[in-house]
């Protein structure tokens, strides 16, 4: 799995890529390290076609851990396939999902928590 980060405004956009089908698994530690503590991050799945069962669980753990330590996280770039898998197994509703990076950035930047810390 490859990770690339860039900053858009105050939001860290973490782009993942690779076939996370079980040959490789989402490295939760790596992702978590890139999410700013008390900050905002978008996890961009545009270049990820598939997440296996283990990766889905790691993603959820990372997401919740980040939220518990005060960060705000949203997902973008879910392919139709990925989105439909998440929906079918009941995981989709656990995440904040934005249609694209611009919307995601706006969502995180304009959220009440954001204004409180701005």
């Amino acid at each position, binding site marked *: 799995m490859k990770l690339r980060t860039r900053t858009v405004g105050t939001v860290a956009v973490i782009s993942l890529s690779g076939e996370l089908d*079980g040959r490789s*698994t989402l*490295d*939760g*530690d790596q992702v*978590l390290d890139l999410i700013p503590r008390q900050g905002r991050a978008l996890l961009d799945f545009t270049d990820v076609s*598939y997440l*296996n*069962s*283990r990766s*889905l*669980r*790691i993603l*959820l*753990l*990372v997401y919740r*851990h980040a939220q518990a330590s005060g960060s705000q996280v949203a997902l973008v770039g879910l392919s139709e396939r990925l989105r*439909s*898998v998440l*929906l*079918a*197994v*009941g*995981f989709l509703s*656990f995440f904040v999902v934005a249609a694209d990076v611009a919307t995601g950035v706006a969502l995180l930047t304009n959220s009440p928590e954001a204004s409180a810390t701005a």
Partner: protein
Amino acid sequence: MSRPVHVVRDRIDSFPTDEVGGFPVRPGRPFPFGATLVPGGVNFSLFSSAADALSLVLFRLGEREPFAELPFPESCRIGGVWAMTVFGLDYEHVEYGYRVQGPAQPRIGDRFDPSRVLTDPHARALSGRKVWATPPQPDDPFPHRARLTFDDFDWEGDTPVRCTHGDLVIYELHVRGYTRHPASDVTHPGTYAGLVEKIPYLKDLGVNCVELMPVFEFDEFDNDRVNPISGDRLMNYWGYSTLGFFAPKAGYAATGRYGMQRDEFKNLVKELHRAGIAVVLDVVFNHTAEGNENGPTIHFRGLDNRTYYMLTADGQYYNFSGTGNTLNCNHPIVRDYILSCLRYWASEYHVDGFRFDLAAILDRGEDGTPLKSPPLVEALSYDPLLRDCILIAEAWDAGGLYQVGTFPDYQRWSEWNGRYRDVLRRFLKGDPGTVGELATRQVGSPDLYRHRGAHASINFVTCHDGFTLADLVSYNDKHNEENGEDNRDGTDDNSSWNCGAEGPSDDPQVRSLRLRQMKNAMALLLTSQGIPMICAGDEVARTQRGNNNAYCHDGPLNWFDWSLLDENQELFRFVRACLAFRAEHPQLRSSEHPCGEDRDDVGLPDVSWHGAEAWQPDWSAENRLLAVMRSSAGPNGPDHIYLAANAHWEPQDLSLPELPGECRWHRFADTSAAAPADVSQPGAEPILADQHQITIGPRSLLILVGRPLPAPDPTALRSIR
């Protein structure tokens, strides 16, 4: 938590002690049976009462040949249980099985076969049929492989539904058939995820319990026949032939191809519960997919044939199920297996109850003799984890044991009341001599369940076995030619009547009578005491073109055609109103049989019977008119219900019983009236102009409710003055 994927290694027994077959291993933990993820490895455990040696056979996903075979060392055996923890497995990509060696001196009935790889009877997931009807590999020696999957799931506080069983309305459906039709308009047709999209429909209809036809792993290719009309290969569509008792069918999951069927099924249960709908599973413990000696060896036969199957003295398979073998349910090992299976589904999947197919087999001892106190049934009845589950028996089998009313119930079990079905059908088609028994069935069959209460009776007119409701009123005879057995299969005893023409008809009178008969059936069913069960699709007149044994068709014949909802809005509306009616009148849902006395002090007995004249029922054989009045203290004051059923082809004038005090008769339903006057919304029933006389139409049902008139509005009086 700083490292989300950290593996805890602070147990002193989470390290290997040996090497076997190239893998680090250690003696494992016997419980739980099956394959369990443990720190650093996988614990494999299974039992055989007589195996001499056992090995774990490992495959990479989809590869025909194994990549490793690990014989269980003696140190891994306690009694007949073999348990080994294997470290370093890439468990996402592994499939496994077992090779079992029997005793050097085989006993009668042993069928050990070390040349075969067997699957794990405790497998939590199977691969091999991940996507429904994907053509199997020819001559695949090991098609149904066990897989390793995750147990964890965020239930978000979900628990089994806590409700009184008597309030249930059961809706029997087939997972694939419910949303596979193109007109179903769901994202993933024919799946658990697809069913979630129909939850709003179920809520709108008003059912609060779904009974899912078998969802334990089965092989849809388990059928050699061909449809003589179309030439298509026939399938095992219904699924009454279990392979994997602990595994939800992957082929019913949109995410089955990714191995996520467990999560998808759990999500289905969670969403159903969120909508207030309980989940009952149709379970098949009377036989397995292994069949008799000519069937495939999948697990039990090669692991412990003598234990798992009822065998004759010379080792042949008893066949009380009609399918080739009979599970030896009351053997202590099999009993534990079944009990642990049910506990697993109740706890792991939050299932609310079980319906046991051919349950009379659960009463048979190891030699087939019916037992008065079958240990399995007793154990299920007292199990603490299953305490709140509804347990439903289809209390007969294919070996001649018919136990409706006599199934050993330990005050827990309900039964599919086949007698209810039979008399209701016969009454509807106008048979003589039915009103007496109909009366008994309407009040919860006290002749059968006096000691249990009405909730022991699962009332139904149709189910997956037999005609759909639409076909019950459209066909005199079965038409199963497409099943490939020259129409010899399926029951001939349907008590159906085609209303004047066989099959589809353009005759408006025939069609109108059929619609009326369907309404009659539903109204009678939903106003009877006991727990009603509806067969999915009956509310929109689903047809199987007269096929009353459609177990083998994966196609529009069986799929719920959602365009029927538009075509048959009138019937749907009627059924929905009857369901709402039932929810409004607690006395119809009571577990106590009525006794004919004024128990609630409302001025009338709790039940009374009437004919054309009030208070004068006609029990003679040639009479086809029966009226019942139910009276009780309802949540909003006295509640009186009068239901008249006329199976005669002519109308009748009825004199109505007089209501006490300020109560007046209001008309809830009249199946001879044209819609929308055929049924009202509960609470909004129009008052009858004539409180003493009413005419009931031919082959019709009339339902009245007696309510006090609203108190006069004092402000209205003031304004008149």
